[in-house]
């Protein structure tokens, strides 16, 4: 699946890694406390705001930022743009990490986590529940992502003659993968399409509680397109970061093409948002200039800025502008999703929510853990593109034919 990827190598226990380790250790302590005393003392959540940042940030924003694998896969496979291949492995890696940790924070957030094993049991399913769709889909996608990434591990393990068992297992899995990879890659596009739009559908039922600037039947469309945007943006941001950290040449050429597509998605999002409000006579709410209209305008500005910045081809080829636009886009999508789940959520007078420090520690700790895993994996396994093409690494699995 990937071609000229190679392990970065180098020491694992760098300073960054150690800092992350420290943060993660703190997170573990908080988690232990949470499982002893419950959610009340550890979080800012309450009966009015039963969903806090573990859902709104870790899951709703986090999985969208982890949609790079999805966005790039659409291009590569559904739209047959082979030139984006170099981006696939790193994107799938971040997706796998992001989704796995989102899954972990759901477990932390669930009050009665010991019952989760009952969710996948078909006869328990309430088919009306959007959350069921999201849960099943995300669980399945985590598995799909690790399978999609597995060639990177297999390539290494296949050669580990020192461990015959590992070696043999890797070879067997490799054969299996060759047969089914196409089906899995297609799943890797279908599942995010489903659950990213469903994340928006989760709020459809809150007809009275969600502010009218955010509540619309088009929530699924807005969530799907924001996921695609945030996925792309995260890929750009991350590849810029990786190129910087590991001192590799920038991939601006490839990325500039991507940015052109993003401009279209950005304008699509803005148009849907505004036309929808206008058609349902809610544009007046923007003019009230209260807190909510302020948040709405900030969102709009964050979406519009990168759309304008990337409009000209010349600017698209400028790595600095590209990076800034990517950051703006990540902020725009994140704010939109955060507003929909927390800021625009108004359960009634007297209720308020602000995350506690332990709550934030868990969120930050999970991000730190993700960084650690990322660093470890790119150093040990062929994830990042090398720019050269050592034939040894061209071990792409074959399709069934």
């Amino acid at each position, binding site marked *: 699946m990937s071609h000229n990827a190679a392990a970065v190598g180098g020491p694992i226990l760098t300073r960054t890694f150690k800092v992350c380790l420290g943060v993660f250790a703190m997170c573990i302590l908080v988690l232990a406390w949470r499982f002893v005393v419950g*959610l009340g003392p550890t979080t800012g959540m309450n009966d009015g705001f039963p969903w806090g940042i573990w859902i709104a940030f870790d899951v709703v924003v986090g999985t969208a930022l982890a949609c790079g694998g999805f966005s790039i896969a659409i291009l590569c*496979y559904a739209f*047959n743009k082979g030139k984006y291949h170099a981006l696939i492995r790193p994107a799938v890696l971040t997706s796998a990490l992001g989704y796995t940790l989102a899954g972990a924070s759901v477990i932390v957030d669930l009050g009665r986590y010991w019952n989760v094993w009952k969710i996948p049991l078909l006869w*328990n399913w309430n088919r009306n529940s959007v959350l069921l769709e999201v849960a099943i889909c995300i669980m399945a996608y985590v598995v799909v992502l690790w399978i999609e990434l597995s060639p990177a591990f297999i390539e290494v393990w296949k050669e580990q003659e020192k461990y015959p068992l590992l070696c043999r297992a890797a070879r067997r899995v490799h054969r299996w993968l060759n047969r089914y990879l196409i089906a899995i890659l297609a799943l890797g596009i279908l599942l995010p399409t489903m659950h990213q739009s469903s994340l928006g559908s989760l709020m459809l039922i809150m007809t009275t509680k969600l502010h009218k600037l955010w509540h619309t039947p088009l929530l699924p469309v807005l969530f799907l397109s924001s996921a695609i945007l945030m996925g792309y943006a995260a890929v750009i941001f991350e590849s810029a970061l990786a190129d910087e950290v590991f001192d590799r040449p920038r991939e601006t050429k490839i990325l500039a093409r991507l940015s052109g597509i993003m401009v279209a998605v950005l304008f699509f999002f803005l148009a849907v948002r505004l036309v929808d409000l206008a058609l349902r006579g809610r544009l007046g709410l923007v003019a009230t200039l209260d807190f909510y209209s302020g948040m709405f305008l900030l969102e709009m500005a964050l979406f519009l800025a990168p759309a304008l910045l990337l409009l000209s081809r010349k600017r698209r080829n400028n790595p600095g502008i590209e990076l800034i636009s990517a950051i703006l886009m990540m902020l725009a999508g994140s704010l939109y999703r955060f507003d929909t789940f927390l800021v625009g959520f108004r359960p009634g007078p007297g209720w308020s929510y602000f995350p506690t420090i332990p709550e934030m520690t868990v969120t930050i700790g999970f991000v730190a853990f993700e960084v650690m895993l990322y660093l470890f994996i790119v150093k040990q396994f062929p994830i990042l593109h090398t720019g050269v093409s050592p034939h040894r690494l061209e071990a792409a699995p074959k399709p069934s034919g």
Partner: protein
Amino acid sequence: MSPTRRSVLKGFAAAATLAATGAPNAFAAPRPRKTPPADAVGLLYDATRCIGCQACVVKCKEANGLPPDTGTPRGAMYDAPDDLNAKTKNIIKLYKGEDGRTSFMKAQCMHCVDPACASVCMISALYKGPRGIVVYDPGKCVGCRYCQTACPFNVPKYEWETAFPKIVKCELCRHLLDKGGIPACVAACPREAVIFGGLETLRADAKGRISREPMRYFPKVYGDTDGGGTQVLYLSAAGIPFGKLGLPDLGDEPVPELSESLTHAVYQGFIAPVALYSILGFAVYRSWRRQGLGKGGEE
């Protein structure tokens, strides 16, 4: 390049057809309205009769084994819940208007005909039980708290202070009903401000009270049709609309209507996902061949 573009367009066309054929179907056939079961029971609360004595609050706790929610102003202990919570399934609130007029208000689960909480619960830990009572099964609940965010009345509460929490809400004292009794709040009320009975009887009674004494009542029975109807009905005093008592303006549409019809439209018989999957599978296969991915060469 041209065959690629053509096939991309083909893929688009297929997707568009899918969307175009799926969407009107969904809107042409709206989700059927739910009706309460024939033996549905409920409560009728008449705010004009309530004297705010809190007897129902105390008896509810007793009947359901709920601990007091203590506050200690000036050193003395009071069972003083300030809202529904994990220790309080039923509460009497007071509304005070600017003109000095007051009204009491009883809050507990509304036992909606088409409950949002049951609609969203992944594995039906909340569901419409016998006689239309909305029942909780802790054996299934995973504690996701979607029911809390979805309920327009903010009814389901969560045990925040424990490592092994449950959702807590009024179940119309179903344990007493099973033994032929009536809900504790109804039994406790000295003024018959809240009565228990068959839903149709209660509806007729409520409408009868308004037509007999139109000067006394606000001219509407809350819960008759609100949010698709509830099995708990409210009467308010003339001049005090239900919004003042904290009851949301839901319209007549069932709360889960929008979310369920959109979800069903997309996932009806799983046709759309399967169709999309087939298109994607084909697209991936084609790119795979075109890009020569299986043959170890790139572009």
